[in-house]
């Protein structure tokens, strides 16, 4: 057995030193390579998951906001229609009232004008009659003076 070991150059001290070498390598790689790299992978995976969740939440909120916006626009347009309709009604009412009042005023003016015209005509006639009477009287006077000569 010893001869066999010697033929392969085996030596207990060398075996132990090589075991120590391997142990050192294992310890260093474990502490400074595997642990940090695997931790980094896990950390990044957590970050990505968080990012995806955030994006999903943002999408949901966007969808909510869209829905809300649509609702708002719909109610606003309904309100606007109502406002326009009522405004039109009031405008029509006012227009008809204004035209009614204008009609009334026109009627009144016309009536006044007619009354005044009547009055003027009457006065004119009255003054015409007086004038005629006076002219007739003057003519009669003249005739009477002429015949007395």
């Amino acid at each position, binding site marked *: 057995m010893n001869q066999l070991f*010697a*033929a*392969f*150059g*085996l*030596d207990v*001290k*060398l*075996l132990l*030193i*090589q*075991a120590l*070498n*391997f142990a*050192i*390598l*294992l310890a*260093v*790689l*474990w502490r*400074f*390579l*595997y642990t*940090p*790299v*695997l931790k*980094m*992978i896990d*950390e*990044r995976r957590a*970050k990505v998951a968080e990012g995806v969740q955030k994006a999903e939440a943002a999408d949901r909120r966007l969808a909510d906001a869209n829905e809300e916006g649509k609702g708002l626009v719909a109610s606003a347009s309904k309100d606007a229609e109502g406002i326009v309709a009522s405004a039109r009604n009031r405008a029509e009412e006012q227009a008809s009232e204004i035209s009614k009042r204008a009609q009334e005023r026109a009627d009144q003016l016309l009536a006044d004008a007619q009354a005044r015209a009547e009055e003027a005509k009457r006065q004119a006639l009255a003054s015409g009659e007086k004038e005629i009477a006076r002219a007739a009287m003057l003519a009669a006077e003249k005739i009477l003076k002429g015949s007395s000569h």
Partner: protein
Amino acid sequence: MEGGTAHQSGIHVALAAERIGSFFGIPLTNTLVTTWLIVGVIVILTLVLSNRISLIPGRFQTLLEMLFEFVYNYVVETLGSREMANKFFPLLTTIFIFVLCLNWFEFLPGVESILYHGEPLFRGVNTDLTTPLVLAFVSFFVIEITGIATIGVYKYGSKFLVNPFKSPIGAMIGVIELIGEFVRLVSLSFRLFGNILAGSVIIAVATYFAPYGGPGILSLFEVFIGFLQAAVFALLTLFFIKLAIEEPHGAEVH
């Protein structure tokens, strides 16, 4: 005859690593020096890299993370839980990285021609049985301890020690399985050692017979073998761990 002389002068195959000195009674072999160099380089690279790991990765970090995730997921799939994977991923990956670096080191141009007192200063570490055997022992102890710790001494023992009066065939199979556990020490270490040594011998032969082109093509192939053996060592350890933590088959029969 000519081959004989060639063998003496040109091609030299040594199973044992060349000794280039001693240090407080410890024989310093060229494979040990090589291992120190490689471990040192990996440690320094790791410490440099470790400071640069950031949440927003660079290209190299992305590549590293992709490889790690791939291996980690494979270990999780095989062992069945993240908890087990967290325990064994570092060991398996270290075996792979270590063996891969050791195997590939000798393909760095010129490293094997640096001489120190007439002997090469560096030598492919797995062309010496020491390191494969150490790794096989590490793998063996991890497998056995994990098996005992996970399913308990009694259940784990019942895989190998079956009452021969109840089930003679079961007892025989148990003994064979027990031998099989220890044979793994030999099979794991010699698979790695044999493949890598054979590779370097083949390249040495090719260098002698077809110095232009031959070694280059064979080196490419041996680079692949080096990767393959590193993966095989780590994967076999993984599968043996998987086997060790499984409940014994006889349990549900009885």
